[in-house]
Every structure is written in structure tokens, then in C-alpha cells.
């Protein structure tokens, strides 16, 4: 209790009383000990010689990587186009699949709270818990290397993300609009089309471009595991220590991400 009286009978106020103050200090002490212990563990496992050497090596790679090998751009157009396609198609398919999952997962639209909702949530969690690079690894093994595996990886990873944000948006709608449409004698589907969809449309558009934006970034690395796109060239150049090519690829990725960011900002601004 922060309010107490001192020996003169005056009321005093402190943020914490003595016990919680001690507890607070003990907490900080405990946290510091854990941090120091972990730091020591990491330090023991590190070859500090390499770390101290790092600036020199980085400078060395930098001088080898610059200037970028501009002539290499000719072979990059196709992989960057593949990368964009992986991201865009993957996002589209993910959205198509995420919408029904979101409606099944939202508390106010799910047909059954005890069976169907948990299944929908399970789909969302399992899709979200695995990184798209790992999905790509699995899918390359299953459907073979190439763009299709990359697109599937992006799709599967994005379903959970989109469905989660969308079902949260569905749960936050104004219920009175739904009530009003229900009161007209509208069917279940009509209530959805008139009472719910208009309310979640801005959220849907925002989620779609946001995820597309993320997917452009993710799809640039999928090639590392053989799932198509510009990552394949990146891996090849890294393996052959072709640093001028690496710097050019990184530059191309940067420009692609910048453009996608610009486009998604424009789209979001236009819809909301």
C-alpha cells in the first residue's frame, strides 16, 4: 500500500511500499546476473580473434565487391521477375485461402466455437509458426526445385498471417450494423455481404498490400534453398566468391523492395 502514516501520524505517499521496493531491486539484480551469465557463455563460445579481425575482412570484401559488376544485370532480369511473381501470386493465393479461414476463426462469425474455430486457429498457428524459408526447404523436397515450390512456400506462410489479422478485424466490427441487416430478414450470406464485408474491406486491403510487401522481401531469399527467384543467383555468386555480382544483386533487391514499399503505401492511401 503506497499510502501509510509515519510516526507523527502524517499520511505519506510513495510509489511503492518497502516490500515491493525490495522486490523491485531484487528483480533488477536477478536480471543483471542472468545477463552477465549469458554473456559469459556466448563469450566462451566465440573466437574473439575473428571478431577483432572483422573490420579488416569487411573492408577487404568491400573493396573486392565495389564497383558492382554492372554487366551482370542482363542475367538478373529474369530471376527478379520470377521473384516478383512468386511474391504476388503467393500473396493472391494466400488471400483466397485466408478469407474463409478468418471467417471460421472469428468468434462472431464461426459456425461452431468448439470444433471449427479451434481447427481454423490450428491452421493459422501452424502456418505462422514455420518460416517461409523452411516451408521452401520442405516443398523443394516435395514438389521439386523451382518457382512453384517458392510460390507455395509464400502462400502457406502467408495464410496464417493474413487470416490472423483478418479475423481480428472481423471480431472488431460494429455489431449493430450486423444486427440491422439481420433484422431486415437477410440470409446468413447476405448478412455477411452487407453487414460484415464493407466493414472489413479497408483492413483487408491494408493486410493484402502489407503482406505483399513482406513477401517481396521473403521471396528474394527463397532461391537460397532452390525455390526459384533471385536468391539462386545470390547463392551462386556467394559460393564462387564473386563479390561484385553479390553487391549488384543486393542493390537490385534493395530497389525492388523500395518500389514495393512505394506501391503499397500508394495503394493503402487510395483505399482507406
Amino acid at each position, binding site marked *: 500500500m503506497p499510502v501509510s502514516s509515519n510516526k507523527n501520524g502524517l499520511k505519506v505517499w510513495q510509489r511503492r511500499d518497502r516490500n515491493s521496493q525490495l522486490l523491485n531491486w531484487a528483480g533488477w539484480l536477478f536480471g543483471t546476473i542472468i545477463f552477465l551469465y549469458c554473456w559469459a557463455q556466448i563469450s566462451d563460445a566465440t573466437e574473439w580473434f575473428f571478431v577483432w579481425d572483422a573490420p579488416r575482412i569487411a573492408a577487404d570484401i568491400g573493396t573486392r565487391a565495389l564497383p558492382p559488376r554492372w554487366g551482370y544485370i542482363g542475367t538478373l532480369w529474369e530471376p527478379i521477375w520470377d521473384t516478383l511473381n512468386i511474391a504476388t501470386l503467393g500473396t493472391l493465393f494466400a488471400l483466397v485461402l485466408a478469407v474463409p479461414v478468418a471467417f471460421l476463426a472469428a468468434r462472431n462469425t464461426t459456425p461452431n466455437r468448439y470444433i471449427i474455430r479451434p481447427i481454423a486457429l490450428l491452421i493459422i498457428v501452424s502456418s505462422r509458426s514455420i518460416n517461409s524459408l523452411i516451408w521452401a526447404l520442405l516443398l523443394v523436397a516435395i514438389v521439386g526445385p523451382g518457382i512453384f515450390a517458392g510460390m507455395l512456400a509464400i502462400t502457406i506462410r502467408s495464410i496464417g498471417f493474413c487470416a490472423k489479422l483478418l479475423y481480428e478485424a472481423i471480431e472488431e466490427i460494429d455489431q449493430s450494423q450486423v444486427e440491422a*441487416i439481420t433484422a431486415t*430478414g437477410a440470409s446468413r450470406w447476405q448478412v455477411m455481404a*452487407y*453487414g460484415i464485408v464493407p466493414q472489413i474491406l479497408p483492413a483487408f486491403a491494408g493486410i493484402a498490400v502489407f503482406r505483399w510487401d513482406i513477401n517481396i522481401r521473403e521471396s528474394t531469399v527463397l532461391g537460397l534453398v532452390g525455390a526459384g527467384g533471385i536468391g539462386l543467383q545470390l547463392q551462386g555468386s556467394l559460393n564462387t566468391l564473386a563479390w561484385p555480382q553479390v553487391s549488384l544483386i543486393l542493390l537490385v533487391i534493395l530497389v525492388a523492395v523500395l518500389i514495393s514499399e512505394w506501391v503499397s503505401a500508394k495503394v493503402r492511401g487510395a483505399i482507406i
Partner: protein
Amino acid sequence: MLKLEQLTKVYPTGDKALTDVTLEIPSGQVVALIGPSGAGKSTLIRCINRLVSPSSGKAILDDVELTALGSAGLRRERRRMGMIFQEYALVERLTVMENVLSGRLGYVGFWRSYFRKFPQKDVDEAFRLLDRVGLLAMADKRADELSGGQRQRVGIARALIQDPALLLVDEPTASLDPKTSRQIMRLICELCKERDLAAIINIHDVALAQMFVERVIGLRFGVVQFDGPPEGLTPDVLTTIYGEEDWKETIQKVDEEDLQDVVS
């Protein structure tokens, strides 16, 4: 004719919102339902179109027992009960026209409504109603661009395009200024007269209710405490409905103002 027989609603929390409400409302009669917040006014009208399902008792509209209907039958009967809401409950991101036409959803198939291909007859009626409530020029505006009074007029048009036999009106004026409140109440009552519509109007403003309706029902703790003409609302009656307060002063003052307003 709407008949309620011992309608009772107990919420899962154990709150008894309505207790044995028995009423009869002949067609064409406009009834004001008054009572303190939490008296069960909203629950009562929602039990009639079953947005809330009553625990026991019957609601009967023109020989159809609403409380016994399955989901298809319920949808069919809901078309005959227009509802008007306190915060308008328009679909904010749709246009005025789409909002009005949404009153026809019960008559139109899913795909037609999805592609906004309503029958020309419905569109004509929507234009006629928008003209009647004075919003013809607003048909293409989005609902969230309108003022409170305009939105409530759209709400009224949406309820009327259903071609209902009964209007359920939940606090139509609670979010409106006094002048707009009167205009809205007048509009609702005029439209009920034009179409020989019965209506139940939940309302907080006793004086406003007295101005416009022919019958008042007072509800307290889910029990009907008063049922009679508006002149019967004496300070004693208001005390039984709302509890102890100096009613005489308030009501008479407002009443005189209102009378002048009606005359002028």
C-alpha cells in the same frame, strides 16, 4: 395486430430482463415504451423480431407465432418488422441508396443482392422513400458523410422499404439534438399514419413521447407498470416507473414548450 403473451427473458447471467409481459397492439397504433435504462425496453423489442430469443412466452404478429418459427420462417417474418436503431446502425461504408435497398434483402436472392441488381420496382420505391424523407439528393453519398438526423432518415427509409406491418424503434432520438429529435419523431408518426403501421418506440424523453403518441407503456425492471394514454402520466405514475424525482416541474415546463412547438 401484435400480441405478446407472458413474454419473459432471462439472460444467461441470471438477469431477468422481462417478466410476463402481456400486451396487445392493434395495427396502426403507435406506442411509446418508456422506462429507466436497463428496464428491458431494448430487450422487449428485440424479443419480438428475435434478435434476442425470449426465454418463454409468445409473440404473435397477425396470427403468426413469431416465437415458434424456424430460421427460414423467422427470416420471412422479419421482413414484416422494420427496425430503427439508436445509433442509426447504417452500414457506414455503403452509399445511402445501398443502405435503403438493404431493407429489401429478405426479398432478393443472394447473388442479385451481391451484385446490387435489385428489381426496378425496389429501386423506384427507394427513390420514392428517399424523396419522402427529404434525402433524394443524397442517394449517392456514403452513409458516413451524413449528419445524425440525415442518417436516421436513411434508417427510417430502410425500415419502410421492407413494407412492414410493424415498426420496432429503439431510441430513435437518443443521439440527436432536440429539434432534430422532434422532426424524426414527427416523421415516424406521420409515416405510421400514412401506412396504417403499428409501432413500438423506445424512448427516454417522456415529454417527446407525450407529444406524438396515443399510448404509453411504462416498464420498470422488466415489468409493465403503466399502460394508458399519455395524459395518464402523472407525477405519481412517473415515480412508479422511474423512481422518486420532482416530476411535476420538469414535465409541465417541457410540455408547454412542446405544445407551442406543435401549434407553430
